């Protein structure tokens, strides 16, 4: 399999599947029919709940797990069919960082970063030059001779990142790299990853269960549920118009817009008899995100709007807003049509009597 067609992608999953033999119950499908192109130089987030199979998916990129169907191609190499020696060469082009850092406790910061270079057989003087440079890049010059036990979680992950970059890989895999860190440290580690992506043009594939991580650094996202990719695309598009319920539930967690409980409790799917309010989710995206659309709705159509919850934030450079409002149910359709004409996305959540 020397001539795998190159689509220009850094990583290509093609109908990839993975099943495990389980005693008593035959085969268990962990992943099914995964097809995804990861473009070079992008940060792609794969998000899913624990047990969704995202960790297995990541491990197939560097051959830590073997696919049972389909292929995964990294820089033209079919990882699943690579022999032991070829696999070791591929792995030097694919760095990896871990949730629990996986640093050697017996080695200093310097020794940990030097390890992949020793393994690759790089000469000593070259190792020193590169390790010093990497430790500088992640801002740990003062800690070069410390042992991991003497470092904070954020510092350990910086060592992990420096170590993963040591062999100058083209791809960096991140296995829940910030899940063991507090929110503040998470931000600094994510910023470091974004800087590395920008400065080195490194392709980053990360898995996470936190939509906030995807929002903060990923340009592309794939949502995985029950072993399948249920939604994929540019992060902004997916956030603006989530199609799958799993995506929506992940988004609800970070956009801070769930209905207040006193309304959620009274929400009905069908419009009731008599007077009622229609509860609508409005997603502001792109150029209209900052327009005063609700004020216009009231002034131009004379429809009063109750704001129930809402937030405006940024995904990459784009503003992105999400509002939950209610309007008189008899005028709901009119209001939604007006908003849709102005390129806002609307979704009826239900009715309150």
């Amino acid at each position, binding site marked *: 399999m020397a001539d795998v067609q190159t689509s220009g992608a850094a990583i290509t999953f093609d109908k990839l599947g993975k099943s495990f033999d389980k005693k008593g119950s035959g085969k268990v499908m962990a992943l099914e029919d995964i097809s995804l192109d990861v473009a070079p130089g992008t940060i792609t987030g794969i998000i899913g709940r624990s047990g969704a199979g995202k960790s297995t998916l990541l491990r197939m990129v560097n051959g830590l797990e073997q696919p049972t169907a389909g292929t995964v191609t990294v820089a033209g190499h079919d990882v699943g069919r690579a022999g032991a020696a070829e696999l070791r060469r591929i792995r030097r082009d694919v760095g990896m960082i871990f949730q629990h850092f996986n640093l050697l406790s*017996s080695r200093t910061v310097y020794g940990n970063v030097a390890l992949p270079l020793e393994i690759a057989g790089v000469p000593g003087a070259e190792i020193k030059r590169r390790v010093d440079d990497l430790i500088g890049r992640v801002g740990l010059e003062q800690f070069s001779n410390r042992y991991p036990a003497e470092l904070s979680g954020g510092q350990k992950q910086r060592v992990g990142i420096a170590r993963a970059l040591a062999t100058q890989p083209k791809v960096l895999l991140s296995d829940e790299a910030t899940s063991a860190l507090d929110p503040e440290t998470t931000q600094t580690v994510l910023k470091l990853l974004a800087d590395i992506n920008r400065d080195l043009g490194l392709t980053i594939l990360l898995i996470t269960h936190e939509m906030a991580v995807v929002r903060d650094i990923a340009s592309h996202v794939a949502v995985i549920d029950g072993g399948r990719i249920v939604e994929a695309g540019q992060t902004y598009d997916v956030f603006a118009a989530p199609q799958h319920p799993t995506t929506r539930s992940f988004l609800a967690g970070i956009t801070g817009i769930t209905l207040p409980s006193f309304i959620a409790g009274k929400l009905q799917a069908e419009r009731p008899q008599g007077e009622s309010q229609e509860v609508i989710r409005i997603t502001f995206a792109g150029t209209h995100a900052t327009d005063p659309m609700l004020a216009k709705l009231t002034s131009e159509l004379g429809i009063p709007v109750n704001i129930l919850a809402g937030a405006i934030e940024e995904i990459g450079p784009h503003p992105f807003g999400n509002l939950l409002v209610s309007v008189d149910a008899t005028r709901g359709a009119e209001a939604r049509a007006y908003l849709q004409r102005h390129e806002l996305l609307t979704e009826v959540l239900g009715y309150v009597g």
Partner: protein
Amino acid sequence: MSANLINLLIEATLQTLYMVAISGALGTLFGLPIGVYLAVSQRGELLSSPWVNKVLGLIVNAARSVPFIILVVAIIPFTRMIAGTSIGTTAAIVPLTIAAVPFIARLVENAIREVDSGLIEAARAMGATPFQIIRKVLVPEALPGITLGLTLAVVSLIGYSAMVGAVGGEGLGDLGIRYGYQRFMPEVMLAVVVILIVLVQLVQSLGEGLARLVDKRAPRNRGR
């Protein structure tokens, strides 16, 4: 106690140290790689070969099942083949080593298995060969455990060395039996026991000190 007896005690102590040091060194030389192999050849591990592992494990268990005093006499022909004689301190090193190898192998195996599997995964992800993983990850990371295991093995060897009087191995145990017991000289028995206690204490303290030195897992106390 006469000067003659004191000379005998010094000589017996040196004999014990000699037997324990050589058999400990040889036991480590053979036991360490066997222990590493026992750990990495388990099913699903780095050099997974469950059948070889099973057979090797059975041999190790069999060797450990034989009471030491029986081992000493049972392997006399083998001892003669290796050491040229079946009597004396040097000859006693053969059964001591044979007892030490499987014991040390199991202790090393346990220490290696304690190493976080995440570290093996990280090394594999770097493109390391199994041998590089053993040399650069497993053994260095298991070193505190291995050091404590070897300490335990040396302490046991000091005890075993007391039995090799049966084949003229001499040393402290033999002196205690011949003078302290058979000639009924309780002061010799007492002296032997005290020297053995001191030896074991020294070995234990030294081993624990070394283990602390190579253990970088806990932050060192900086008065925080």
